[in-house]
């Protein structure tokens, strides 16, 4: 029995409380196979063992709660540690930079890491908190993204209710393909800059008018 088997067994037996607890813990940063739980919950809805609206409500609430824990850790736990750590290394400027980045890309970052690039979700909770991203805005984008994620996966599980195991394996691999593609694009861009620094410099001169 691996961890997925244990969690799905507990979900089958105890239902919603397990769904809520496991999703909250995972959203706070503990790596657990929760996409699988959502798909299985969708299948149990189809089998008449659970109610659709209850599953969506409970799973979304669990995910949002876990995300708030991650955000709070970053904001009130992590910030102090980072400040102490970086005091002698231009820390204030770094934090200001991260904060500016989070404020600029925060909304899209929060929204897409809830349902599309899910493996990065817990990291973004921490960094949003650390960068002091406004909590209300974090909360709103978080709720929107999490509800979309829950509805998507539960409905997938409901429609492919007879093939939970197979579907979950495909989705698990697909999530990493998406993360890999994004990382490849970012690294590819950096690589181009290293390989052709002269072109980039010229471009800068043109754009800045020097």
């Amino acid at each position: 029995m691996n961890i997925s088997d244990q969690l799905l067994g507990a979900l089958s037996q105890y239902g919603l409380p397990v769904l809520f607890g496991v999703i909250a813990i995972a959203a706070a940063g503990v790596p657990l196979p929760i996409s699988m739980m959502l798909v299985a919950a969708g299948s149990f809805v189809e089998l008449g063992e659970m109610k659709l609206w209850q599953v969506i409500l409970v799973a979304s609430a669990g995910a949002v709660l876990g995300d708030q824990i991650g955000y709070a850790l970053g904001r009130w736990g992590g910030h102090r540690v980072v400040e102490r750590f970086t005091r002698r290394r231009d820390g204030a400027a770094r934090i200001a930079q991260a904060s500016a980045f989070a404020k600029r890309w925060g909304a899209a970052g929060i929204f897409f890491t809830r349902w599309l690039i899910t493996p990065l979700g817990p990291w973004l909770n921490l960094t949003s908190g650390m960068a002091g991203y406004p909590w209300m805005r974090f909360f709103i984008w978080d709720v929107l993204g999490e509800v979309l994620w829950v509805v998507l996966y539960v409905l997938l599980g409901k429609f492919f209710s007879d093939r939970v195991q197979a579907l979950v394996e495909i989705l698990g691999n697909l999530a990493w393909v998406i993360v890999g593609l994004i990382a490849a694009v970012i690294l590819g861009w950096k690589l181009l800059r290293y390989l052709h620094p002269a072109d980039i410099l010229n471009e800068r001169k043109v754009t800045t008018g020097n």
Partner: protein
Amino acid sequence: MNHTGWKKWIAVVAFALVVLATGVFAVRTVRRAMYWRMHRDETIRPWMSIPYVAHSYRVPPPVLYQTLKIPPQLHDRRTLKQIAHAQNRSVEEVISVLQDAIGRERADHPPGAPTTAPVRSP
């Protein structure tokens, strides 16, 4: 100069690793999807309940209950692992008994024939 060289190599290696890992996951995804298309059946796992196995394999639940010699239950949430534990046998044994029963049921009532009666409580 040396510093830039280092950075360049790190970026090249990181890029190659990411592309390699993405490729591996992409191949795995496609292989799983193809396997899914070709094999309609799920692997029976210890987390599954009897209603789920019956639903997944499209056999009437009473057939599976009968083969395990347990009375049918409505809203049965027990997992195969629990059933195996209650019957003092391994979950692998329970899974193999279920697979045999599914095989027999399918041989008796091939898919497509309207023979699988709806579940009725006695």
